[in-house]
């Protein structure tokens, strides 16, 4: 195994290369483009045996990846933000075809207004598409999860697209030390696709894939099968992670639990910002706190039982959502609350919205969230949802609004 310095985009490209992808339909968008650039250079130099096609849009790109996958070709593609939204119609469709391919999404906040930096409203818009979602927090996880994702997508009981998510900038353009899997070991871990029982395109044995189904009864069967397959992806992922650990020595699972065992208070969040929470946990522990981090790696299927077990008996949990569902609030918070409903000994939950559009979450904000959580737990009163936004930011906003000729009228106090 070779130690290398790789960006998140470089790690994703290496993952696709080690998975020996055969087909790469592509369309550019920041901050994902570097993945495609890297792969195209390898294809051009002959280091990869893969067909790359530049498509006219993400809509065509996802269609092409799905079509290749159902005809027995290992396909991979990548997008971000508006690109994912543009391909959304086909994302639902190819998932309905039960097409096993891997889509890399490099998270970036959605327009309007525009940002290049990350939040999770792009990937969460694909939440109900039947695609499996794996969320990475380091460049190491990105390369490893590319291999895991293909195993998961292609396994007989799953057969769904898998989205590997990494945050723009904080991972995509950030170089870190990565243990690059050895190609022979990667081959041993990820057998060629398709397996013998798979659909494989042969001109003399025509098969219609993705046929139209009209009517609710047949429709219900297929839709529920996709749901059951998604649920099955959880134990399947656990099993694949065990195989991975046996070969490569790195352990993964639906949750990462960091110093959670004796923790009374817990941060829950996904993605690369969660490593910042680890740093905060270390600092808080040094100051005498019993606090930890629980980070779902897998978000669809939702790791409900593992989460309930990990949070059982805790005093308080701060859910930090780098997303917002307008008119409801943080999506992770909402889902966790539903998972814990009715569980005896469920912890108090506090909702924080932070890191929208790449806004940083500072060390002192993690410390303050812990303090708010502790106070709320002591009185058993959940605090109102809190947007991480400071008076200084508001002053800067007002300065911009003055230039733009747009000073809004304040309407009472609300959140």
């Amino acid at each position, binding site marked *: 195994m070779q130690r290398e310095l790789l960006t998140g985009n470089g790690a994703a490209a290496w993952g696709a290369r080690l998975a020996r992808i055969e087909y790469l339909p592509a369309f550019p968008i920041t901050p994902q483009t570097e993945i495609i650039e890297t792969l195209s250079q390898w294809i051009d130099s002959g280091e990869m045996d893969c067909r790359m096609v530049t498509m006219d849009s993400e809509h065509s790109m996802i269609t092409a990846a799905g079509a290749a996958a159902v005809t027995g070709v290992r396909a991979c593609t990548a997008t971000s933000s508006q690109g994912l939204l543009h391909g959304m119609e086909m994302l639902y469709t190819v998932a309905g075809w039960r097409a096993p391919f891997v889509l890399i999404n490099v998270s970036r906040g959605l327009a309007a*207004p525009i940002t290049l930096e990350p939040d999770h409203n792009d990937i969460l818009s694909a939440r109900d598409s039947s695609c499996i979602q794996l969320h990475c927090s380091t460049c190491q996880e990105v390369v490893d999860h590319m291999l895991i994702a293909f195993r998961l997508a292609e396994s007989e009981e799953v057969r769904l697209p898998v989205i590997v998510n990494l945050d723009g900038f904080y991972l995509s353009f950030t170089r*870190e030390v990565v243990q690059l899997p050895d190609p022979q070991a990667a081959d041993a871990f990820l057998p060629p696709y398709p397996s013998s029982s798979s659909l494989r395109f042969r001109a003399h044995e025509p098969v219609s894939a993705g046929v139209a189904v009209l009517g609710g009864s047949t429709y219900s069967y297929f839709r529920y099968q996709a749901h059951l397959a998604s649920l099955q992806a959880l134990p399947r992922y656990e099993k694949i992670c065990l195989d991975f650990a046996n070969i490569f020595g790195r352990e993964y699972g639906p949750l990462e639990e960091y110093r959670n065992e004796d923790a009374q208070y817990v941060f829950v969040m996904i993605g690369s910002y969660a*490593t910042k929470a680890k740093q905060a946990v270390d*600092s808080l522990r040094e100051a005498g*706190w019993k606090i930890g981090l629980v980070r779902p790696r897998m978000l669809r299927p939702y790791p409900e039982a593992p989460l309930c077990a990990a949070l059982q008996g805790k005093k308080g949990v701060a859910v930090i959502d780098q997303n917002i569902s307008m008119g409801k609030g943080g999506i992770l918070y909402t889902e966790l609350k539903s998972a814990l409903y009715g569980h005896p000994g469920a912890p108090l939950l506090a909702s924080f919205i932070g890191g929208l559009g790449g806004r940083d979450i500072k060390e002192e904000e993690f410390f303050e969230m812990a303090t708010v959580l502790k106070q709320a737990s002591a009185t058993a009163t959940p605090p109102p949802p809190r947007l991480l936004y*400071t008076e200084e930011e508001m002053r800067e906003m007002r300065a911009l609004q003055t230039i733009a000729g*747009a000073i*809004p009228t304040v309407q009472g106090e609300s959140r």
Partner: protein
Amino acid sequence: MYRIRFHGRGGQGVKTASRILGRAFFKEGYDVQDAPRYGAERRGAPIFAYVRASRTPIHERGIIQRPDCIVVVDDTLMPVPAAAILQGCEQKTLVLIISDLPAEKWTHRLQIQGKVLCLPKSVAGKGSPLLWGMACVGAVTRLLGVLSREALTDALRQELVTLDSAAAEQSSSTALQYFDKMAATQIVIQESSPAAATTYTSPRWLDMPMEIGPQTAPAIYAGATSEKLATGLWRTQRPIIDYTVCNRCWWLCSTFCPEGAIHVDSEGFPQIDYTHCKGCLVCLVQCPTHAIQALPEQEASRLSGEEK
């Protein structure tokens, strides 16, 4: 953990410098994180990049808030508020600036808390702004006191692999020359520990008020707001009109200027608005009488006496 932030302009090797330093740390067995951050991806626009290095796994992520060292590859950025160069500068921070001004001038002018060290432009990279990033990374590598010349040499070879051999050689020798030069100084960049949870200052969070009306949409109602952005600060080359050669055609340069930064005065002479001219030099190419010449921005501002 070491935390180093590089500031400069697109084209001055700022990202490359951060990668070279990151690679040198990696060679010495450190855990490393390096990353660039840019808005407008354009030559001359302000960019920065940062490096973290530690003997233990790094969990911090994103922009460095409290740097141990701030490297300023281009001193014309020092007063630009948007570049936020001195953000998080503390007493222990070393501020390394490519500048012909004495360090005390900068300390006094910008009330800099940390130590300031200036490397003269004329010497750094033989005066070429494209090599200043290399001079900086060589100097910083030495000032850290924990990285060997061999690690730097290896890092340069690996990170400059996309350059042609002459350019790579010139960049490498500049960096190594500055590594050697710093042997004479007593300054050492000190690493610092993470923020303590016992002594932090609470963030002044605000309860977001609901506001009404179309003003809460991301729209700009006022006209000509782009005038407020001094894009002239992006310029690395300055077009200068020789009015003895200009034939007052009155329209070519001003029409082709993509920024609308050339207007024609009442006598029919074009006048360049240097506050907004980005130095693209389209005017220079268009002028039929070759009345427009380009000068490197540093030299132009020196000649016109703008630099004190």
